[in-house]
């Protein structure tokens, strides 16, 4: 797949930008500290589960202000982008950010993998969860990218996090709001929909909190295909919007 802009330069630019993004490193450091605490307090398996649930947020964080800063700053009105289309460069940022976040995630995943070999905690499902996490990461990048075409200064990421906060607040309220609320919670815990209404509920839940895909409950191919369909939708919408993007800075 070629977008006309050399990927290694997109990677280089993204890497340099990530190096400047202090919050990414704070998050990485905080994440590792939390993993260590979990490991110490609750054991290796809990820490591993915690890792799989949360590492997709690295992808979300790396996608903060993915497009707007460059579009608004005027840095795309550069001699480079007369020959190498700036729209292709922006599109390829999805790939370069995904690769960078994958490297960062792998660096944390590998110790888990190695340690699992020692006491016999190894399971092939670890890979399944890790790859599901990578898919969730791509989901976040594509969604944050789509939002980032309009939202500035990291508010694309903030919007997603706020929606998830409201989702969990809503679920908390649901637990104490009678039978129907508890039914929903039971459905989310079981991950076994009966009928189209329940399937729609689960689909909406995963669209809002795709991290659940890393758990065994949501390990079926159907859920992953749904997420994949949304990724293609977000990337398609991005490509459509980017294809019409103009540099209007005065």
């Amino acid at each position, binding site marked *: 797949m070629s977008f006309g802009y*050399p990927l290694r*330069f997109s990677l*280089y*630019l993204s890497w*340099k*930008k990530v*190096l*400047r993004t202090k919050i990414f490193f704070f998050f990485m450091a905080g994440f590792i500290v939390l993993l260590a605490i979990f490991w110490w307090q609750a054991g290796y398996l809990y820490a591993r589960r915690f890792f799989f649930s949360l590492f997709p947020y690295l992808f979300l964080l790396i996608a903060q202000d993915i497009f707007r*800063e*460059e579009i608004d*700053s*005027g*840095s*795309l*009105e*550069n*001699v*480079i*982008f*007369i*020959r*190498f*289309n*700036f729209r292709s460069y922006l599109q390829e940022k999805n790939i370069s950010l995904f690769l960078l976040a994958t490297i960062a995630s792998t660096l944390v995943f590998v110790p888990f993998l190695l340690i699992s070999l020692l006491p016999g905690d190894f399971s092939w499902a670890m890979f399944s969860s890790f790859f599901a996490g990578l898919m969730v990461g791509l989901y976040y990048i594509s969604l944050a990218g789509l939002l980032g075409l309009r939202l500035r200064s990291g508010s694309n990421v903030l919007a997603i996090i706020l929606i998830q906060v409201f989702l969990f607040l809503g679920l908390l309220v649901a637990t104490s709001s009678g039978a129907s609320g508890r039914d929903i919670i039971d459905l989310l815990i079981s991950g076994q929909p009966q009928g189209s209404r329940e399937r729609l509920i689960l689909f909406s839940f995963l669209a809002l909190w795709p991290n659940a895909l890393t758990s065994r409950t949501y390990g079926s191919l159907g859920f992953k295909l749904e997420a994949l369909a949304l990724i293609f939708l977000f990337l398609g919408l991005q490509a459509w919007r980017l294809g*019409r993007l*103009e*540099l*209007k800075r*005065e």
Partner: protein
Amino acid sequence: MSEVILRAKGLAKRFGHVQALHQVDLELIRGKLTVFLGENGAGKTTTLKIILGFLFPDAGSVDKIQPGLRIGYVPELPAFFPWLKGEEILGLTAGLFGLGETESKKRRDEAAAFLSFDLSQLKRRVRTYSHGNQKKMAYLQSMLLDPDLLMVDEPFSALDPVAIKQVRDLFIRLREAGKTVFISSHLISEAEKLADQVIIIKQGRTLLQVDWPEFVQKGIYVRARRVGSIEKIIRDRWPESQTSDDWLEGFILRREWEEFLSGLNDDLKEAALKDVEIRPPDLESFFLFWNRYRSR
């Protein structure tokens, strides 16, 4: 024989309710320096951005007639990736365009010496440079590509008088090397020293494109009073002139002016053309004349 390397035809562009361009036509000729003149908001930058592919035209087309045309570009307010140092930007540019380290260093050093750009600044992020040095950095980056066509929006803005002279000399050197330069500028006095071609744009329409040195050689500026009795004759024979109340003003080729006069009998000349002022054309009054009066 002049060789057109880029042609824009019938460009139109609307931003919301504002029709920025109505009809822009222009040609850039190899080895010539073309000056693009127009008031603020006339559509110069929009035209440049359409040519460069940063904006889509609503109508019209840009044909790069020379295959593989290498284009350099210096915007009015250059901006660079905020997180990159000068040397990283130049390295990235050289890498993208496949320049070897020796060649890119040679071109960089030459351009830096020409523009008196202190290379030690390259260790810093470009956004920490002064406006003038950011502008120089944009020139440096473009010169790295050895462009066939250099397009510059307000080439002298943010520059001190020394740098203005250096940039002017850079344009001359490029022209001497057979390169094409296209500048959009408000600084007419500087542009006049350089212009081979002049394009005037008003309210999103090209008014004219003229070979300036030829016009300076062959043309004149004419101003006369009490032309009321021959106003119709003037309108018929010299439609590009402007008459108002009792005076006449315009730019015309000397030969055409003489033909015009020879078509008038002595009495008319005596009665209608009083206080005739004739002088060589200068770019400022040429621009002001066209900008004030003419629209297609």
